[in-house]
């Protein structure tokens, strides 16, 4: 069957079961858009290409499927870079299609030509420039395969206009591409080693990370921890991989980790890290990190092991398969923690929990951002997926919103991209129309991709924005308060639009709360309205995120804030 490049593209997208594309048209992709006009695949027209990538990324994180974007060459392509780098840092499977000028013009500085494969080489898992129609089908197939296999990641496919216009005999049976499936099952002797370590440990601790969510290994991780009563802490990316309401859960560790999680890390004698790459925000100073512990690190990517923290037992493997093997081995060999030791360890943790719980001053005149988040958790009743922006809003969400399920917190961890939350929420809501999808935002971040309100309004994608409006670039202001003697250099953002009016101008509902008593009512109203809603919570302006581990400190050395914080 003779097909054009554009037809082949859509055919393979259908074969790959792509339901939705986030995109933005332009000259080099006009022919593809013409095909889309008659296609069954849904296309969401975003308002900025960065938004398209974040939306596809949100969709991918919430569903575990590959997210897909389509943009034009030149500026369309360069606008995707922040989104791609965001997905790359968090290992999110995406396929980003960019238009390109015809192959015979490449290198000529043609109109809207740009070497996007060159630009994105360091921030993609892989990328391709399709040089002729013969390689088109196999390249697209391969792109999807690479995006989702092993440690997932974004793949960019650059599509020159003439290649897409060319014709070829299309035979799906003849499409060949290389298989990179890097499925690892660790050697049995590793399991015996873990067994030995556990048998000798008196104070074991699990650290769960994004690799557990990506590897769909939450059930195994939860079973392991519960069966053997091993407490669990997690990185930002690991939140949701272990039930947030379980007594064994210690919350997040690291820079804004809980007191008890960081104390547990510093005192444990065995640390089992699963799908964690030990980012500097997690470890604090390396030489003081978990100094009392032997460390086991399980990860699918050998390049993540022994990179930041030197470990005693590296296990390269798929997290799910490895944890399954581990449970099986421990069961078969009748591993049982010694009751008295385990009780002592859990009691110690309970004491830390009691001594410094997560807290804030609850009875003031101003709305507390933490209170908004707790109330949201209460009224959403679990039927919710939360996205965040970056800054204090993100850290308070990680601290005060207990996530019980994987893929219910969607946040930019590795790159920390302000402007991520709203477009990501749009992508999530497309996949889960019956769940509440809420972007917990800061007033700085929300302005970075605010234009996507139009996308939400146009397609009736009823996302909700909980804006924790402090009139500051709050997290940066916090650093200035704590480490720069309150010199608030360029972090005051009181000059801002009236967000309620702005929402209305976009055709979205705007609500505002200025007093603590209005918080619950506003949230209930906002969640109930069957439209996109922006809720502007005017919060206590100079609230800080505590605990905080200062730069260059050990994670056991935390600033806890004053218990009676200013109000």
């Amino acid at each position, binding site marked *: 069957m003779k097909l054009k490049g554009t037809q082949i593209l859509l055919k393979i997208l259908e074969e790959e079961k792509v339901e939705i594309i986030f995109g933005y048209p332009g000259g080099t992709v006009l022919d593809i858009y013409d095909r889309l006009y008659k296609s069954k695949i849904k296309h969401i027209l975003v308002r900025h290409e960065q938004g398209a990538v974040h939306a596809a990324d949100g969709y991918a994180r919430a569903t575990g499927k590959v997210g897909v974007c389509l943009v034009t060459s030149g500026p369309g392509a360069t606008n995707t870079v922040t989104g791609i780098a965001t997905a790359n840092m968090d290992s999110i499977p995406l396929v980003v299609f960019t238009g390109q000028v015809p192959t015979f013009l490449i290198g000529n500085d043609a109109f809207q030509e740009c070497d996007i*494969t*060159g630009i994105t080489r*360091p921030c993609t898992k*892989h990328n391709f420039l399709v040089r002729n129609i013969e390689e088109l089908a196999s390249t697209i197939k391969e792109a999807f395969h690479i995006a989702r296999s092993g440690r997932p990641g974004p793949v960019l496919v650059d599509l020159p206009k003439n290649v897409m216009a060319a014709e070829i005999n299309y035979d799906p049976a003849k499409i060949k591409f290389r298989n*990179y499936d890097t499925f690892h099952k660790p050697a049995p002797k590793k399991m015996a080693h873990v067994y030995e370590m556990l048998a000798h440990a008196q104070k074991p601790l699990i650290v769960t990370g994004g690799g557990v969510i990506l590897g769909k290994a939450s059930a195994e991780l939860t079973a392991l921890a519960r069966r053997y009563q091993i407490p669990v802490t997690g990185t930002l990316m690991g939140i949701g991989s272990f039930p947030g309401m379980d007594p064994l859960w210690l919350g997040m560790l690291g820079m804004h980790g809980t007191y008890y999680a960081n104390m547990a890390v510093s005192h444990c004698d065995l640390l089992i890290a699963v799908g964690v790459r030990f980012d500097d925000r997690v470890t604090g100073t390396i030489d003081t990190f978990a100094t009392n512990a032997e460390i086991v690190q399980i990860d699918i*990517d*050998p*390049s993540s092991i*022994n990179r930041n923290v030197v470990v005693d037992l590296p296990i390269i493997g798929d997290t799910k398969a490895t944890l399954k093997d581990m449970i099986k081995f421990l069961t078969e060999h009748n591993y049982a923690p010694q009751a008295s030791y385990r009780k002592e360890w859990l009691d110690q943790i309970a004491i830390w929990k009691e001594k410094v719980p997560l807290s804030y001053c609850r009875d003031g005149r101003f709305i507390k951002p933490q209170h908004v988040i707790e109330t949201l958790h209460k009224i959403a009743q679990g039927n919710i997926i939360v996205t965040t922006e970056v800054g204090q809003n993100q850290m308070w969400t990680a601290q005060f919103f207990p996530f019980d399920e994987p893929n219910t917190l969607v946040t930019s961890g590795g790159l920390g991209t302000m402007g991520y939350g709203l477009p990501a929420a749009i992508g999530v809501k497309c996949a889960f129309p019956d769940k509440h999808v809420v972007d917990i935002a800061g007033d700085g971040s929300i302005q970075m991709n605010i234009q996507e309100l139009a996308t939400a309004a146009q397609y009736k994608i009823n996302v909700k924005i909980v804006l924790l409006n402090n009139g500051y670039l709050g997290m940066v202001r916090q650093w200035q308060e704590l480490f720069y003697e309150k010199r608030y250099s360029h972090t005051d953002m009181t000059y801002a639009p009236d967000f309620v009016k702005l929402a209305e101008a976009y055709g979205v509902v705007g609500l505002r709360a200025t007093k603590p008593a209005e918080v619950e009512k506003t949230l209930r109203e906002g969640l109930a309205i069957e439209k996109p809603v922006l809720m502007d919570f005017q919060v206590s302006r100079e609230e800080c995120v505590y605990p905080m581990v200062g730069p260059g400190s050990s994670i056991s050395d935390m600033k806890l804030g004053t218990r009676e914080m200013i109000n």
Partner: protein
Amino acid sequence: MEKKEHIISILVHNKPDVLARIAGILGGKGYNIESLCVNTTTSYEISKIVMTTIGNQATITRIENQLRKFVDVIAVNNLTNVESIHREMILVRLNLSADSREQVTKTIETYQWKVIVSADAYVILEITGDKPQIDFALARLEPLGIADITRTGIIALELEN
């Protein structure tokens, strides 16, 4: 840990941007490539890259792990840890003048260097050897006045695999 030079041999699919990708990403991660040689193997589809880099064992392991992540990389082999032979080549042009002609000719004879172009005003030599041999030759060539020189990166081959 001790820093030393490592010679890493990498088999890759011969794709247009594979070299840019590997060099760019290693560079971006702060690893230094000291020398590089690339060409196709017996198959045009597959190229071999021989790369030398300096680092301690932990750094080298990171580089190897990073290399194995590339989609186009087929195999990574550190030749420093196995028995292997190493070669580099230089092409050198020495200008000849009335004063120097005799000494140049004598030195070339002494070391039995291979003259590949011989003209009135200059000679071009081709010298191959491992690093110490090339360094030795360079030390002898220096006083004769090197007009121009090109030095390849290191290529290497395992004795057995």
